[in-house]
């Protein structure tokens, strides 16, 4: 009797509709062999991904162990640890790596502090209309050009820019933030802020109100409820946001190049100039493994804390 459950049964022979019959037979096949459908869906993205993305990561690792002939600038396929030795021995590269990680952490922290009350207000206090407005207020900067937003801050912080003009109007002295690490930190915090707000909002919005009422019924005050109910439930959202802010800062070279000074070099800037100027792909690849490892560690921790469900 099992055969009669097949939707193609009994319809296949109907004349004049060969296309429909073929489609039904195909649907029946996939119904009976679900794995075939799964395989058909999964194979193309997985193949493309493996072929391009994973091979690229492998290529990155392999070429990090190669070297460039200083005279011909050809890549020589000789296995050696020279690139990594340079990275470890040179204090300049150590400083650059630490600066990159330090500013990325500072930006993440700043954005978390800026975003949390904003997202809280949006999720739990604002009216429905207010929420729609705030959504647009976050989405518009998120969707507008990254370069443009970095560039605006150059105009704001410049010696004869808007900020100094305003400070002078208020009778205050000039600021000299332009082309410093502070400018880099400020601009990164500005540019990546929406990436923090949205996941935190998502996490806060999903907390059922009954949880908060239950907490109150059990005698917890406003602060205790916040600390022991709201905060733990919102944490995956904050961590999901921090993956974006941390990773995006870690892998950037545009902002330090456009808005930083002589001592604002990031890992990305060394990689950028190694490829673009000195054509030393192996050394660039070796240095690019540093943010890769940092991020691998970060993602492992984030996964433990349940941030992936909140992305």
């Amino acid at each position, binding site marked *: 009797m099992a055969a009669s459950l097949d939707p193609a049964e009994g319809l296949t022979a109907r004349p004049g509709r060969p296309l429909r019959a073929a489609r039904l037979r195909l649907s029946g096949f996939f119904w009976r062999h679900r794995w075939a459908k799964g395989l058909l869906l*999964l194979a*193309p993205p997985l193949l493309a991904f493996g072929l391009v*993305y*994973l091979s690229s990561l492998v290529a990155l690792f392999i070429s990090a162990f190669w070297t460039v002939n200083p005279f011909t600038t050809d890549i020589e396929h000789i296995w050696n640890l020279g690139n990594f030795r340079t990275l470890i021995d040179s204090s300049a590269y150590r400083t650059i790596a630490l600066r990159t990680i330090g500013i990325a952490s500072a930006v993440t922290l700043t954005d978390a502090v800026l975003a949390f009350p904003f997202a809280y207000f949006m999720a739990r206090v604002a009216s429905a209309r207010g929420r729609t407005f705030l959504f647009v207020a976050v989405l518009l900067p998120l969707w507008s050009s990254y*370069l443009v937003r970095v560039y605006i801050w*150059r*105009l704001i912080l410049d010696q004869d820019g808007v900020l100094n003009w305003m400070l002078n109007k208020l009778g205050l002295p000039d600021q000299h933030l332009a082309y410093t690490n502070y400018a880099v930190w400020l601009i990164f915090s500005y540019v990546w802020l929406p990436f923090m707000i949205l996941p935190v909002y998502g996490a806060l919005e999903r907390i059922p109100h009954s949880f908060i009422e239950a907490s109150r019924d059990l005698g917890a005050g406003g602060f205790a409820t916040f600390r022991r109910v709201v905060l733990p439930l919102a944490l995956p959202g904050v961590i999901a946001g921090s993956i974006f802010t941390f990773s*995006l800062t870690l892998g950037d070279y545009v902002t330090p190049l456009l808005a930083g000074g002589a001592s604002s070099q990031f890992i990305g800037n060394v990689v950028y100039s190694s490829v673009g100027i000195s054509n030393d792909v192996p050394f660039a690849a070796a240095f690019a493994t540093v943010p890769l490892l940092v991020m691998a560690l970060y993602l492992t921790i984030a996964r433990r804390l349940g941030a992936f469900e909140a992305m």
Partner: protein
Amino acid sequence: MERRGTRWALGGWTTLVVLFLWAPLALIMVYAFNKSNVQSWPIPGFTTHWFHVAWQASEVRSAVWLSVQAALLATSIAIVLGSAAAFAIARFRFFGREAVSFLLLLPIALPGIVTGMALNSFFTFSHIVPSLTTIVIGHSTFCVVIVYNNVLARLRRSSPSLLEASADLGADGWHTFRFVIWPVLSTALVAGGLLAFALSFDEVVVTFFTAGAQNTLPLLIFGYIRLGQQLPVVNAIAFAMIVLTVIPVALAQRLMRDTGVLRRGASALAATK
């Protein structure tokens, strides 16, 4: 409900953050009309001259065209591969499923410099010359994730028993797709596609490593700003880009409202009052 004081403090903070987010955008809109080609404040006078210059510049035009092509191609690839992957992850249980879903997230979780450098090593490795194709390959990696995430979120909220019901009522695969899956999925696909297009159109960190000597619009602007050339033209382009941003934001907003993402939140809030 929060105390009155807390609510006011939260409201004040939110207002300041909105100002922080918007004031710079408003400012560049003013700079676009700067009469002088020195970018200082306050601007000496207004002109629309630079829009004309930007519109006429052949460099700008070819960069825009390259960016549009790359974004369209990358988005198309992303829609096909991203939704296929989302279906497989949402509807099937198989060995290594967790690992696959983790892998798919890597292009947006890993720093841009890693993705860019990895692709650059790969192309150098296999002697592939930079072209439109390499740009599209680079952009596809993170565009796929965007569509995948959007479609996956939608599929998780819709019931798989709808498909069984459709088959029970005699529909074949095509009918089920056309009348059951598509209506559920279409807005998620449009929203994901829009975001993927916008990301691709704006991308600069990875693009540098895959573009070679050609300029996409962001690469062109990057060069202009870095060398301090054509800044009035940059201002004009910035103005146009911010104005154009309103379109996808309005669309995405509408799509989210239609699918109840906002309404769900609003009704939950109303129930508490």
